[in-house]
């Protein structure tokens, strides 16, 4: 079908708990998302057929849109007399998504490249096995056996390099005889993407016991990483093996007009498309109940990480454990006993569908969300590094010695930060989402922020493979909710000392002029289609996005929150004393109008009206 003929598009995302359907229609102004329906996902017992949930979600779209789409339990395609849709497409993360084990010779070289390939293809990486991962050989075998992944990606060695290390890993896999998670009568798919010279040996070791696929080496030389062939092989095998054995997916794959994509892979695709089209660097985050995915596109380089146990309901207790209670409590303007915090968090863990009913409870969840975002981003940066072992021979030694590589993610060059997930997309006030993103990621210089209105990025990702223009139009018009722009200062921060002076001309009213000292934050209201003229003069050595000590003069786009001048420092400065810290937090919250008024909180600077 020619893309020009696509006037009505139906897309679903089959999540672990909910199947979300959206309808996209061509209007005079372009493609728009016009309707949305959802229903519980039906992969697990008693239904065990994903299409039941898909049909239920589509029925909701039918009811809301008034457009008949189904006939006899099937989707009508293409459009006939105002009925049906031109194409139906879908993504899926139901049934736990794509769960992979990756293996490579050296943990921070080929194993890390393999991890990047698997994550970029939309997988959850259950474990990374490497020759030097610190585990004894029999422990590695036991681990491979107990995991039951959907697929294994085996890498190792540069072309022409070591053979024995990678064959050793293949032997561990053969000895473990791992069983696939789904379809127990089938052989486990294994992709070999390592040293070309080891192919025959790996084939001899694994081809009888596993469904072996051999693809190009992900690390053909120390200086190059070639992830695309392995990613493609993963996604093909995802459809052939994993999806084909998941309940109802054989039917679903017959309905769709394009291959079903793993949800995170689709999100990555739309982000890459947007970054490429706009020529920007961007970071996206999807914070869920159990996991947090971070995506980044920097200078065209795409990477995704998934923090499997950082989420704000099922995994909330793990966030507290990893962040430490004092790092959660430091975000609260009210005193809360550490034991009480732990009890509340554990109670949310065991009853994850409950929602905050009081403002202090909401603040607590937002504090934990900040920690989850920050931890997930930290993990992302650890994988978003230049290739290790490159150029200098001694760096190979550094790799073994655990020397950390620098992340190539430069926050000063970040143009757009996009958040999605319930705690961000459904925060009672948009300013709450903006501040959580600012606190979790600590952008520096000038950065635009936005949230995904109803988490339709998966749908648009799979659509971008079919009709890129339609996907981009919907992304710009209906998916992104601009929050505004953050201008954050970095430099020699000294609490209470002058950080910058500003002159801001908001879209309405008089220009605002004044100074900000370190530790202050200020909001200037500017709506979604509006912008502010900003003239910021930093103190000596301070950088607000134009370079140290240099003035920043530019237009800054507004959004549902506005333009924020952030002089809280990077990393954000907190007073040592608990009382003083709580007063300062209260001032930040007040300055950005984050919550309804709190008893005893000081009012801070807030300008420009609403």
């Amino acid at each position: 079908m020619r893309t020009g003929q696509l006037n009505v598009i139906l897309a679903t995302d089959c999540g672990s708990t909910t199947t979300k359907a959206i309808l996209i229609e061509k209007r005079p102004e372009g493609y728009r998302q016009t309707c949305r329906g959802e229903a519980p996902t039906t992969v697990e017992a008693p239904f065990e057929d994903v299409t039941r949930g898909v049909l239920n979600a589509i029925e909701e779209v039918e009811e809301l849109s008034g457009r008949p789409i189904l006939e006899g339990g099937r989707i009508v395609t293409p459009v006939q007399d105002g009925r049906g849709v031109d194409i139906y497409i879908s993504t899926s993360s139901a049934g736990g998504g794509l769960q992979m084990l990756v293996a490579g010779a050296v943990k921070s070289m080929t194993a890390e490249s393999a991890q990047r390939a698997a994550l970029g293809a939309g997988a959850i990486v259950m474990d990374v096995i490497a020759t030097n991962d610190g585990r004894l050989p029999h422990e590695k075998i036991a681990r491979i056996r107990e995991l039951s992944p959907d697929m294994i990606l085996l890498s190792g060695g540069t072309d022409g390099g070591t053979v024995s290390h990678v064959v050793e890993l293949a032997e561990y896999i053969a000895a473990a005889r791992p069983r696939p998670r789904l379809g127990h009568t089938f052989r486990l798919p294994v992709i070999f993407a390592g040293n070309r010279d080891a192919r025959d040996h790996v084939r001899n070791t694994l081809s009888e016991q596993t469904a072996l696929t051999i693809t190009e080496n992900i690390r053909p030389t120390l200086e190059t990483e070639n992830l695309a062939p392995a990613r493609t092989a993963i996604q093909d095998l995802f459809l052939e093996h994993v999806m084909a054995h998941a309940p109802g997916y054989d039917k679903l794959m017959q309905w769709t007009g394009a291959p079903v994509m793993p949800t995170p892979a689709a999100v990555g695709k739309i982000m890459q498309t947007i970054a490429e089209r706009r020529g920007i660097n961007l970071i996206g985050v999807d914070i869920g109940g159990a996991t947090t995915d971070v995506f980044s596109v920097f200078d065209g380089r795409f990477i995704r990480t998934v923090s499997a146990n950082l989420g704000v309901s099922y995994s909330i207790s793990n966030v507290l454990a990893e962040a430490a209670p004092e790092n959660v409590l430091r975000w609260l303007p009210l005193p809360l006993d550490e034991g009480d915090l732990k009890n509340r968090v554990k109670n949310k863990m065991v009853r994850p569908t409950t929602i905050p009913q009081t403002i202090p409870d909401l603040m607590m969840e937002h504090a934990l969300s900040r920690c989850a975002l920050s931890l997930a981003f930290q993990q992302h940066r650890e994988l978003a590094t230049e290739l290790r072992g490159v150029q200098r021979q001694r760096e190979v030694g550094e790799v073994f010695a655990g020397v950390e590589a620098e992340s190539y993610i430069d926050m000063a060059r970040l143009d757009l930060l996009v958040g999605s997930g319930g705690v961000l997309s459904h925060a009672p006030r948009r300013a709450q989402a903006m501040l959580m993103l600012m606190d979790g990621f600590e952008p520096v210089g000038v950065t635009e922020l936005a949230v995904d209105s109803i988490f339709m990025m998966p749908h648009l990702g799979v659509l971008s493979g079919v009709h890129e223009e339609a996907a981009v139009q919907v992304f710009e018009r209906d998916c992104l909710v601009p929050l505004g722009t953050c201008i954050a200062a970095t430099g020699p921060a000294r609490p209470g000392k002058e950080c910058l002076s500003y002159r801001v001309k908001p879209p309405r009213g008089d220009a605002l002029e004044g100074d900000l000292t370190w530790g202050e934050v200020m909001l200037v209201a500017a709506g979604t289609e509006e912008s502010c003229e900003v003239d910021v003069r930093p103190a000596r050595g301070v950088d607000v996005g134009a370079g140290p000590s240099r003035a920043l003069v530019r237009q800054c786009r507004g959004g549902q929150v506005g333009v924020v001048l952030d002089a809280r420092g990077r990393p954000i400065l907190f007073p040592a004393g608990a009382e003083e810290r709580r007063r300062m937090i209260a001032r930040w919250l007040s300055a950005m109008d984050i919550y309804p008024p709190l008893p005893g909180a000081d009012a801070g600077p807030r300008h420009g009206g609403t």
Partner: protein
Amino acid sequence: MPHAYTPGLQVTAATTVRKARLLPMRGDVLVKEGQAVEAHTAVARASLPGDVHPVNVVNRLGIQPSEIRHYMLKDVGDTVAAGEPIAETKPLLKFLKTTCPSPVRGTVQTISEVTGQVMVQEPPRQIELPAYVRGRVVEVMPGEGAVIETRAALVQGIFGIGGESNGPIAVPVEGPERVMEWKAAERDWAGAVIVVGSLISADLVRAAVRGRASAVVGGGMEAQELYGILGYEIGVAVTGAEKVGLTVIITEGFGRIAMAGNTFNLLKSLEGRLASVNGATQIRAGVQRPEIVVALDEAAPAPPAAEGSGAADGLRQGDRVRLIRQPYFGSIGRVVDFVPELQQIETESRVRVMRVGLDDGRTVTVPRANVEVIKD
């Protein structure tokens, strides 16, 4: 009549409980359909493959991988004892001989001429799967396991640690709000399932372990005490494999919370009866809650089957509910009515709410998501 779908924990004096007892891998089923089983009756058996130990023979002997077969004393499929040489060098002078022993008793699985590794696999380990509950076999899945059905009293908890165990119920406290001091637990419990009121402490659990109790069941537990018991934090509620010496189940939540009256009274009425308990909890992907199952006599009429744990069910006016979020966390009451339109709550979120008449006389408005039905 308006109603809402709200998750709940089952607390019932008599229901039909079905337990699928499945082997972790294929094996032999030892029972027949219709057969009566006790909790300890083995229903299925399987051989778990032994651990595999790689032995780097070439490094040990200082030879090339391609030469390995020349030096091997054992071939693929041969059995070896722990410490028995599997390969050795053949020098002219015997005292220069180097041997490579097997680290474990087992069978030689593979010999690699690429890496020079030999895999030795330990013998398979037999495991037997007990029935867990007293009842009758209603279905046999050849090679996989069996389903046991029983009429039973069932109490589901909110969170637990430790796996399956059995023992008679003991209720040494006077009421659901009471706290059992750890010193009072310093006695021989002879495998009992102890019901301790509103609070479980780490000291109490340790005393119960010393006293050979099978399980401790209480209303609540401070989160810090859970750390005290385990020595590590539980980040995600997937439990059941903890090795703390017994099973621990809380019925209400974290903090000091009196056990719901009907739960306590039911357990009190079952004092002395044999209970099957399981602390395994899994909140995601197929909810599993910890449980106490007490098989009843077969003669009594069978009530309708209970559908799984934590199943969603319709909540109606007058139903008994537990409030599960601040500011009313732990309070119990009855549904007064449902407000059909979305309402703005203190946080400014617009959500579906209901009004609940609490046992202390207050009527409060709460989000429907923050209510749990108490099934009785």
